[in-house]
Structure formats: structure tokens, C-alpha cells
């Protein structure tokens, strides 16, 4: 479980996040949704410690993460896997080396054991016969899947995904969503996904937090989101014309 309490974050005096308090539950796919520029990515990066927060508390289970020093943060970070918007695979390393990287850095396994783990992670995300390819030789969907394989290689307790569907076609996007959901259940992880894709919301949104203008506007699940009377949320959820017609048939 990850708990955020009264989080404030600003850049050069401009407030980006204001008084965010939310609990992300273990074994569930937790979604942070909102419009572009609403502060989703800042929130995600603040939780994992890539950005220093102005005030507030970030708890990983019973550990106050944001007050730890670099050395102690490393212990928690060894339990974190993260999927970045652009995949963030290391260009100079092959697929196999990318997935093996966390194992090389943080385990004392033999090369054979590490390669076994790499292959099982790649199999799990359906990447076949691509071990020796470089990231530049992969499609967008393959890059995301390799990045997921790298993220799970150390059996993380926490998985963070920043816009996992961006730049993907709808079918590949659904496959990535399903993969994230399956892995969350399989590894009993606390997964936090940042998205503005309503398909993802309806596919995997077990817990949803809606952010607007840096503030938490709404919290619920995928069933509740369709019947909410929160106007800001409805503007976002029913933004496209098809959804609008379904929601407001008389208009």
C-alpha cells in the first residue's frame, strides 16, 4: 500500500499539486486520471521520489519514504518497477541486456540464473526471439513490453506506469493494459497507472483518482465513474461526442 498525505508541489512558485491525499491499494490497479497538464506525471514522479515535494508525506507501507536519505531510499527503490511514457530503454543495450540490467546491478546471481530470469520475464510479456535486438529496432508496443519485463525482473512490490498506452494503437493499448492488470494480480503488486485514456479506465480501473488543476477532484472505481455527478469529472469522461450522446441522449 502507498499512502500520500497532504502533498504540495510547486515549480518556481507556481503551484502544480495542492493538498493531494490518497491511498493506493495493494493487489489493485490504481489509476491517476486527468487532462494533460493536470499534474498526473508530477504526482507520479513525486511519489517515486524523482521530484522533491514541498510538503506532505509519502508512505510506502509503514515507511515515510520522502524523509529517507538516498541510501535508505535505494532499499525501497529496489522494490519499485517503473514503466516510463517513452519506455526509457537504454539505447546502447540489447533487449536482453536491458532486462538483465537490474539483476546485474542488484543481485549476486550467476549469468545463467540471470539469463533464465530474463527469458522468463520476456516470455511473460510475449517477447520472443528479440533478445539480441536493440531498442531502436523495436516497435512502440514491443518497447513498452520490454520495459515492463525490465520493471518486473526484480519481482517488485510496486509498479508505476506513466501513460503506458501513449502512442499505441487501440488493440496494442488494450494488450498492454491487460498485461499490467495480470501482472498486478500475479505479483500482488501495488500498481499505479497514470493515464488519460478512458479505454484504460474502463479496462483496468479498480481504483481511480481524478486530478484536475493539481487538486484531487474525485475518487472511486470504474463502475462509479460513469454515474458520478461531479461536473469536472463528467466533462473529462464524456469528452468525446460518442460518449456524450450515450450520457446525454437528449442533448
Amino acid at each position, binding site marked *: 500500500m502507498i499512502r500520500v498525505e497532504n502533498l504540495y508541489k510547486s515549480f518556481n512558485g507556481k503551484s502544480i499539486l495542492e493538498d493531494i491525499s490518497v491511498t493506493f491499494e495493494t493487489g489493485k490497479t490504481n489509476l491517476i486520471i486527468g487532462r494533460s497538464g493536470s499534474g498526473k506525471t508530477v504526482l507520479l514522479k513525486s511519489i517515486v521520489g*524523482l521530484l522533491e515535494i514541498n510538503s506532505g508525506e509519502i508512505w510506502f507501507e509503514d515507511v515515510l519514504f520522502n524523509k529517507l536519505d538516498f541510501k535508505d531510499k535505494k532499499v525501497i527503490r529496489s522494490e519499485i518497477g517503473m514503466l*516510463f511514457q517513452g519506455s526509457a530503454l537504454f539505447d546502447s543495450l540489447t533487449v536482453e541486456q536491458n532486462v538483465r540490467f537490474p539483476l546485474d546491478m542488484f543481485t549476486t546471481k550467476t549469468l545463467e540464473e540471470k539469463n533464465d530470469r530474463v527469458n522468463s520475464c520476456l516470455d511473460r510479456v510475449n517477447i520472443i526471439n528479440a533478445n539480441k535486438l536493440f531498442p531502436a529496432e523495436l516497435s512502440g508496443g514491443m518497447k513498452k513490453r520490454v520495459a515492463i519485463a525490465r520493471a518486473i525482473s526484480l519481482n517488485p512490490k510496486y509498479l508505476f506506469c506513466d501513460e503506458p498506452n501513449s502512442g499505441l494503437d487501440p488493440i496494442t493499448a488494450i494488450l498492454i493494459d491487460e498485461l499490467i492488470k495480470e501482472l498486478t494480480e500475479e505479483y500482488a503488486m501495488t500498481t499505479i497507472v497514470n493515464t488519460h485514456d478512458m479505454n484504460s479506465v474502463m479496462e483496468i480501473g479498480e481504483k481511480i483518482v481524478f486530478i484536475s488543476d493539481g487538486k484531487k477532484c474525485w475518487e472511486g472505481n470504474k463502475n462509479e465513474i460513469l454515474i458520478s455527478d461531479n461536473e469536472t469529472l463528467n466533462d473529462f469522461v464524456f469528452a468525446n461526442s460518442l460518449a456524450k450522446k450515450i450520457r446525454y441522449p437528449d442533448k
Partner: protein
Amino acid sequence: MIRFLSQVGLYFLLLKKVFSKPEKPIVYYKQTMREFVYLGLTSVGIITIISFFMGAVITLQTAYNTENPIYPKYLIGLGCRDSMILEFSSTIAALILAGKVGSNIASELGTMRVSEQIDALEIMGVNSASYLILPKIIATLLFNPILTLISIIVGIFGGGIAGTLAGVMTPENFIYGIQYAFIPYYIVYSLIKTVFFAFIITSVSSFQGYYVEGGSLEVGRASSKAVVYSSVLILLFNVILTQLLLS
């Protein structure tokens, strides 16, 4: 002024991160070997070509400016040798490497920053500054002196070939000149300068690349800044080191 001081402060904070204890020495060793090839071996070609022609030009210019019969011909070889050792093979080669290696480092790290690869390292708990920059510094500190020695040898050889082919002196005069009044300390002086310049090129370029914010445009700007700032610092330290080591 405040911005300048904050940048200097940030540079030293980065160096502190760079020189902290490596997570796993074997991984750093492999990374350093990779940088030896990437930053060192790939520079041998350009250093060889440039040094050959620098030596040739120095020899010809010395010859045409000392045509007076009172100057002995072996002075041409001596001039070529000392020019290459004292200045060209260390400072000029460093300026060329600031262009080649410096822009390479800044654009590599800058691209890694904007494509979130550095964030990915941080999330894993890796000290990204140390992992990415320390191997580059070690590789250039160890390899650039070798490049300087190659440059000295090839430059003097180029001078001998050019001078002989142009008929401005005999090979015997040149060989006598490059042996005449040789001061071994000049080699030490040249290598000490090279080590300082290598550190400047790698650390300043890494600093520019590591803290890039934005996109490809900013990566390009960081790359240019890396070359300009490294070159200016090389010239500044050239004066300081010369005064300290030769006075």
C-alpha cells in the same frame, strides 16, 4: 552572477555524486572498458591525421622563417619537436577532443535525460551520475595521455616527412634536431596538462548533458555549450598550468 555561482555549485555537487562509492565495481569496470573504446580508441584516427599535418606545417613554417644561413638546419627539427610536445599535442589536441568527445558526451547524456533513461536509473536505485560519468572520466584520464604520446610521435614524424619531401632540410638534420637539447620534463609537463584537460572535457560536458531540460533543441544547445565551455577552460588552465609547471 547568482546564476553563474549556482551553476558552479551544481557542477561540484554533481562531481560529489560522481565520485561516490560505486554500487557494483564489476559493472563499472565493464562500463569503463566500453568508454575506452567509445571515447578513446575512436579518437586515435582523428588525432593521428591532425597531428601528422600539424607537425608538417610547423616544420615547413619553421623552415621558411629560418632561411638565414646563421640558423643551423637542425633547429627545424628542434622547433617541431618542442612545439608538438609543449603545445600542439596537449592543448590543440585537447581542443579537438573537446569538439569530438565533449559534444559526444553532452549529447549522449542529454538524450538519456530527455528520454527519461536517467530517471529510469534513479528509480532502480542506481547512482546515475556515478554510473554514467565516472567511467567516462576514468577512461579519458587514462587514454588521453596515450593520445598525446601518439600525437607527439606522429606530429614529429609528419614534420620529418614534410620537411624532407619539401627539401628544406635533410633527414639527418631533422633527426639531429629532434635529439638536440631534449628535456624529458617537457613530456611530463605535456602529460600533466593532458590529464587536466581530459578531466575538464569530460566533467564539463557531462555536466552540460546531465542537467538538460526540454527536448532535442536543448540537447543540441547543451552540446554546443559543452564544447565552448570546455575549450575556454582548457585555454585558461593552459596558462595557469604553464605558469605553475614551467616557471
